[in-house]
């Protein structure tokens, strides 16, 4: 197991190296001079030179690259122009907000996605199954920001049940958190619910067709035991890998959701960084989020290996 873990961790090194190189290259994709784009038309040549110097663009590419990696190793991702604050610090500050929202959405996704998928598989080709499949199809097709706006109109404006936006930290008031985070979490989760329901259903159906299920039924095991202990436990193994995709989608989806509900998380930070052309913040935020997700996916692979010994043996 330790060997598998190490192997998996090592494959992340070249990926993270390339990812950081791509984020470094991003600012050099700015057409023309990034400092001109930043300073605007009114900037004096002296101001532009200062900006260029602040961004490190007045040095050679190799020196820039060297300083960039030296900074990364020190946990220094540059300074945000917009906030006048370190990029790493600004991002880490907002991380709990995004994480708590994503976690809430993940819980909704797992409960609803697994439940509907299982119902669909057990009641295959019935009305309930068709309803589940329709729901899942809508789930993967509804734009989340649009759903969010419709929910605001209905639940916040017309019915007045929930606030239209804003955010209360869980540590400050759990109830306030629930009130502000529920609509964002639902709108964020729906796509993944659809995805998970579809995959759970087809994996369950495949598992239910296996010989060991027939054996379990033949030896007289009650249906609940067959489904719960044999079918579900085995179907969950391939579903684990999907959770990695689900988490990636949740975290990236939060960019849009946070903007709609004005929640001060990383997503909103990134959006305002982009609209204000705060390049260091865009680069840093993108790098941190991606690195985090690469690590999450390694964690998921580990769970997978723990659940299914065959994966460990194959890796050797």
């Amino acid at each position, binding site marked *: 197991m330790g060997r598998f873990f190490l192997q998996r961790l090592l494959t992340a090194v070249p990926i993270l190296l390339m990812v950081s*190189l*791509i984020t470094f290259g991003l600012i050099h994709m700015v057409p023309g001079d990034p400092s001109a784009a930043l300073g605007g038309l009114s900037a004096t040549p002296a101001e532009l030179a200062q900006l260029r110097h602040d961004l490190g663009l007045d040095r050679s590419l190799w020196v820039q690259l060297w300083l960039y990696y030296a900074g990364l190793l020190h946990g220094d991702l540059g300074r945000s122009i917009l906030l006048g604050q370190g990029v790493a610090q600004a991002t880490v500050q907002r991380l709990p907000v995004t994480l708590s929202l994503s976690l809430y959405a993940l819980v909704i996704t797992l409960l609803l996605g697994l439940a509907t998928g299982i119902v669909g598989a057990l009641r295959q080709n019935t009305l309930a199954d068709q309803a589940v499949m329709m729901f899942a199809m809508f789930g993967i097709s509804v734009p989340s920001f649009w759903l969010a706006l419709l929910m605001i109109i209905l639940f916040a404006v017309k019915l007045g049940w929930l606030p239209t936006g804003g955010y209360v930290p869980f540590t400050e008031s759990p109830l306030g958190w629930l009130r502000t985070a529920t609509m964002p979490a639902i709108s964020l989760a729906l796509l993944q619910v659809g995805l998970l329901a579809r995959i759970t259903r087809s994996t369950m159906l495949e598992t239910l067709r296996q010989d060991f299920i027939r054996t379990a039924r033949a030896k007289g095991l009650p249906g609940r035991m067959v489904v719960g202990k044999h079918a579900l436990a085995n179907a969950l193994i391939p579903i684990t890998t999907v959770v990695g995709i689900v988490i990636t989608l949740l975290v*990236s989806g939060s*960019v849009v959701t946070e903007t709609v509900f004005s929640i001060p998380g990383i997503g909103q930070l990134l959006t305002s960084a982009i609209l204000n052309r705060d390049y260091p913040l865009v680069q840093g935020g993108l790098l941190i989020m991606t690195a985090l997700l690469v690590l999450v996916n390694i964690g998921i692979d580990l769970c997978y290996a723990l659940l299914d010994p065959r994966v460990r043996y194959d890796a050797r």
Partner: protein
Amino acid sequence: MPGEAAVLDAAPVRGRSPAAETLGRLLHHRLFVSGLVLFGVILAAAVLAPVIAPADPTRIAMRQKFLPPGAGHLFGTDNLGRSLWSRVIWGAQLSVLMGLAVVGLNAVFGTAVGALAGYYRRLDNVLMRINDALMAFPAILLAIGITAVLGPSTGDVILALAIVYIPRTARIVRSSVIVVREMEYVQAARACGAGDWRILRRHILPNSMAPLIVQLSFLFAYAVLTEATLSFLGLGAVPPTPTWGNIMAEGRQYMVEAPWIIAIPGVALMVTVLGLNMLGDGLRDVLDPRLRVQQ
């Protein structure tokens, strides 16, 4: 011998080509047909935009602002009195064109990268490392990052979406090329003296197309959805050019008094994505039975 000739004559039973066979099965697939109808409506609106929506979608008429949907203005008007019917129809055209451009770029470059990586083992390592890194970025975040540096415009959004999705397409093409590469008919072709280019073009690619076609129809859906999201965030085509995303972004301020400004483009977007997803499911069931979702 007369008997032998009769057997040979009888060999092709009915004159249906494989393509006609596949088409027949697709047209009997309920999900595919429903998807075709939904997407067909949007496609028709996009193609016929100049005919069915002759009113200029950017023409401002302050006296007619916030008219609810009804006679005169089928979809109502927005905060500047612009006809929402025209704006949504022209938005459909932009969405479809952008989706097509992204799909086209993916079909060309995704296939090229995937085929090269799958066929030449030496290239595989290098190409797939770059691919893995690009795929490590969450799709929408990378798209946002790229449009952020390039600046908001239609062409840059297409470029960003292409960069985001080509690695995903390439990976799918690569994995089917790797399987087909080992087939006996490929070895036979090589034994006959066929060159790499001929083998790739005539033998490998035509036999690895099914997963690509399925992927492209889902990709069309993602591209339209992501483009709408980007322009909703203010990173897409610049107003007053109407896109579904920026219509909704502008309508957001007035969503209580004039909810139709965000409702209608949202429905159009959902119908498009729903239609394409259904088409994709149908294509997958018919073209690529290995990936079939159990019915």
